[in-house]
């Protein structure tokens, strides 16, 4: 039983660290390695497209991981590393689209749709309210004209 639990625990622990980064790629400097990992998580593997290079086992992903580390060791800042990749692979290399002119519609689109819907709804309720106001007072009670007509109709039915 004890061996079974131990085995199970080991399986769980091993699956936790099932990442694509190979031991030979890891940098000696823990600080640089941390930066490299943080960058890799946001860089798209262009072969498998919805994976980051940190997760992917593809050959190109490995090359890019090594490249990111090399550039960090050479003293590049995080943005310099990203700019280097974007210059060669385009914005698509970033998993999160950058915030700039051509992507404004992507970032603001949902907000614009929401605002338009809110305006539409406001106009709709506004109009309903004025229709009520035209018909009688704003509380929705019948106007004196309407009350008169109603009694006349009811009287007729009674008679």
């Amino acid at each position, binding site marked *: 039983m004890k061996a079974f639990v131990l085995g199970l625990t080991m399986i769980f622990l091993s699956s936790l660290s099932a990442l694509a980064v190979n031991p030979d790629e890891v940098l000696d400097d823990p600080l640089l390695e941390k930066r490299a990992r943080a960058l890799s998580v946001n860089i798209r593997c*262009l072969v498998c497209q919805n994976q980051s290079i940190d997760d992917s086992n593809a050959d190109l992903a490995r*090359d890019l991981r090594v*490249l990111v580390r090399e550039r960090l060791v050479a003293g590049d800042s995080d943005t310099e590393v990203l700019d280097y990749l974007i210059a060669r692979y*385009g914005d698509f290399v970033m998993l999160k689209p950058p915030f700039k002119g051509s992507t404004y519609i992507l970032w603001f689109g949902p907000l614009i749709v929401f605002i338009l819907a809110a305006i539409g709804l406001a106009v709709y309720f506004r109009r309903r309210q004025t229709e009520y106001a035209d018909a009688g007072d704003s509380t929705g009670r019948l106007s004196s004209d309407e009350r008169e007509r109603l009694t006349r109709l009811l009287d007729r039915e009674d008679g």
Partner: protein
Amino acid sequence: MPRLLFILPLLLFGAIAAYFAVGLTKDPRLLPSALIDKPAPEFDLPPVHDGQEGFAKANLGGEVKLVNVFASWCVPCKVEHPVLMRFAETNDTPLYGINYKDKKTDAVAWLKQLGDPYKRIGQDLSGRVGIEWGVYGVPETYVVDREGRIRYRHVGPVLPDAMKEKILPLIEELKK
């Protein structure tokens, strides 16, 4: 006016649906190159064939040129190979090769077996020059103009249709 407002949601839905319908017909794996209309990257590769010259940025420009990234381990490369052979025989536009992450002996044997359409071949063993070009899958084919700028990239094997409809017309146009 209120009538028109009534069909507005329908029109909006139609526009969005049409946009997505067009999007569905495109292959998401084909990425636009970030280097279109930009100068070819700096590189200087050793030759694949011993005794011959390698392939470097200095070889580009002057006239319109075709650059093909290939490898002997790449199956689609074998598919496009006859198209490239035919291109080399029938077109006077120089075709250059970048041998991507391939062993020299494998590449030489492959070219011996299938024929060698390339005027120059550079060996990119580490794949670094591939990254400079923005290569994400072999084979890839680039059209480079007289000024040494990349004008077109084709991802995947160049099939006869792509050669006839895209690459050859562009080469003709750039040569004018």
